[in-house]
C-alpha cells in the first residue's frame, strides 16, 4: 500500500479563493473564476498542461499577481491588504528554475537572505537557517557558492532558502524537473517530511506519478478553470479528463482502464495496487 503517514489536514483554511479571475495584459484570460479552499497541512497537487493557469493561480496566492476579479484570502486576511513581502511570511514559493533565485557568495548567505529580509532578529535568523539547512541536507555545501553546485543541490538550496522564512505554506513549482530517479526520491522524501511537520505543501506538477505517490488532494486545471478537485483516485479514474487537459495518463492507469471489465477498478494509482487487484481478485486492498 502507499504509505500516507502524513499529518491529517486541519479544518483551518489557510488559502481561500473565491471566483478568482485573472487576465494578463494583452487580454489573455488565464483564470476564469477559481473557487478553492486549501486546508492547513494538506499536500495539494495542482496539475494541468501548459497554459492551464496553474502557475498563474499559484502566483495569485502569494501576491506576485493580483486578481482582476474575485478574492484571495490568506490565513483569514484578504491578500489584497498584504504586500508580497508580508505574504512571503506565510507563503513560500520555490521557483522551477533555482538559478533565478540564487545570487549569494555562499549557500549559507543564500539561505539567510529570506529571513533577513523579513526582519527577524539575528538569533532567530540563525535558528531558522540551521533548521532549513538540516531539512534540505545541504550542510556539506554550506560554504560553497550556490552556482558551483549541481542541479539537485541548487534546487535544495533554493527550497531551503524558502523554508528558512518559516512559511506555513510552501509552493513548489515543478521541483523534480531535471532530477534523476535517486534525486527525485530524496527530494520528495524531504518535501513529505515538511508536510508531516505541519507545513501545507502545494505541488505544481505535470508528473502524475508524483501525484499518486505523495499528494492527498489533486486539483486538475484546464484553460483557466478547475475541472476536478478530489483525492488522486478521482483524477486517475477519469482517463478522458486527463487527456482533455493535455496530461498524459501513466501506463498503469491505461492498463487499469483496459482491465476494467474484469473487475479491476479504474481508480488505481500505482503498479503495486494494480498487481494486488489482479492477483487477489476481489477484495478491498486500499
Amino acid at each position: 500500500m502507499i504509505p500516507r503517514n502524513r499529518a491529517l489536514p486541519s479544518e483551518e483554511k489557510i488559502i481561500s479563493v473565491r471566483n478568482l479571475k485573472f487576465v494578463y495584459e494583452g487580454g489573455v484570460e488565464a483564470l476564469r473564476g477559481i473557487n478553492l479552499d486549501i486546508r492547513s497541512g494538506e499536500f495539494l497537487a495542482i496539475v494541468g498542461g501548459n497554459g492551464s493557469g496553474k502557475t498563474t493561480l499559484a502566483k495569485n496566492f502569494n501576491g506576485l499577481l493580483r486578481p482582476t476579479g474575485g478574492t484571495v484570502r490568506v490565513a483569514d486576511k484578504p491578500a489584497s491588504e498584504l504586500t508580497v513581502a508580508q505574504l512571503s511570511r506565510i507563503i513560500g514559493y520555490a521557483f522551477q528554475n533555482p538559478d533565478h533565485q540564487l545570487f549569494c557568495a555562499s549557500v549559507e548567505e543564500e539561505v539567510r537572505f529570506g529571513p533577513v529580509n523579513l526582519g527577524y532578529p539575528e538569533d532567530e535568523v540563525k535558528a531558522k537557517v540551521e533548521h532549513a539547512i538540516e531539512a534540505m541536507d545541504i550542510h556539506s555545501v554550506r560554504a560553497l557558492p550556490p552556482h558551483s553546485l549541481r542541479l539537485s543541490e541548487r534546487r535544495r538550496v533554493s527550497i531551503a532558502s524558502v523554508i528558512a522564512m518559516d512559511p506555513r505554506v510552501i509552493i513548489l513549482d515543478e521541483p523534480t524537473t531535471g532530477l534523476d530517479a535517486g534525486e527525485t526520491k530524496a527530494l520528495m522524501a524531504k518535501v513529505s517530511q515538511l508536510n508531516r511537520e505541519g507545513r501545507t505543501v502545494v505541488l505544481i506538477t505535470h508528473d502524475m506519478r508524483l501525484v499518486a505517490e505523495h499528494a492527498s488532494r489533486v486539483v486538475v486545471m484546464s484553460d483557466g478553470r478547475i475541472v476536478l478537485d478530489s483525492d488522486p483516485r478521482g483524477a486517475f479514474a477519469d482517463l478522458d479528463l486527463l487527456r482533455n487537459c493535455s496530461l498524459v495518463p501513466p501506463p498503469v492507469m491505461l492498463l487499469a482502464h483496459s482491465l476494467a471489465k474484469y473487475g479491476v477498478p479504474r481508480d488505481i494509482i500505482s503498479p503495486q495496487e494494480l498487481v494486488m487487484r489482479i492477483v487477489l481478485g476481489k477484495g478491498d486492498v486500499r
Partner: protein
Amino acid sequence: MSDRSGKVQMKALSMRDVRFKYARSEEWALDGVTLDIEKGEFVSILGSNSSGKSTLCMLTNGLAPHALQGTLEGSVEVFGRQTLGLSVAELATKVGIVFQEPDSQLFCMSVEEEVAFGPENLAVPREEIRARVDWALALVGMRGYNDRSPFSLSGGQKQRVAIAAALSMRPEMLVLDEPAYALDPLGRMELYSVLRDLRQDYGMTIVLAERDSEEAVAFSDRILLMKHGRIVDSGMPRDFAQEPDRLRAVGVVPTQLSEISEMLNSRIKNGKFAFLRVEEAAKGIIENCFSKKGGGRA
C-alpha cells in the same frame, strides 16, 4: 553486420576505450567507453545525472574535444572517420545534435531562418535551402510555422524546430541530449513521435540520452546503461522490461509496465511477463490471470 557483398558495414558511431576529462575537472567524465552503433539504429543511453551521457553526446559531433576543452583518450569514429581529424563544422553534415534547453539553441528571429542557418553556412544554393527547410519542417510537424518567432513557441515546438534545424544539414545521425528535459508530457509525446517517425520513415540513426526509461523502452532498438562514465549494461528493451533491476542498478526508474511484469512474475507460477506496451500487457494479463484456466495465486 555485413552486407551482401560480405564487407563489414560501416558503423554510424564507434568508440574504443574512450576517456574524456573536462579541462578544469579532476574526474574523468567518460572512463573507458566502447560501443558500436549501426546505421539506422535507435539507441537510447540511460543513466542518472553525471553518469556521462551528455559528455558522450558531445563527443559524437566533435564538440568534445574541439569546443569543450578537455583531454580525450581513445578513438571516436563517426561513419568511418575519426572525429579528432574533422572540425565540428565538417561533422555537422554527418551528425546533428539537439540539446536539452529549448531556448538556448534557437538563436534566429524566425523558425525559417533557424532551420536555414545550417545550410546557409555550408553555402548550399538558395533553392535547395528552401527545399530543405520545407522538408525539415514538415518532418517535425511544424509546416507553416516559418515566420513565427521562437519566443512565441511552446517548449515542445521549440525542440521540434531544433530537430528541424539539425535535419536541414542532412546528417546521417541525430544525437539528442535529454531533449524532453524542459517539456510537459504532451510536448514529450510530440517529440518522441517525431523521433519514431524519423527512424521508421527515413532510417535515421538516432542516439538519445535520457534519464527516464518510459520512452526509451518504448521506442529504442537497443538500450545502453551508463554509470560513472562507463557503459555498464546493454540490451534490448524487452530485456529491461523483464529485468527491471538492471535499470535500478544504474539509478533509472524502470517503466511502470516492467514493474507490473516483475510483481506479477513473482506471484504467478511460471510467470514470464515482460510487457512493453499497454495493449500487450492487457492481453497477457487477461489471458493468464482472468481466463478460466489462467493463473491466479502463486
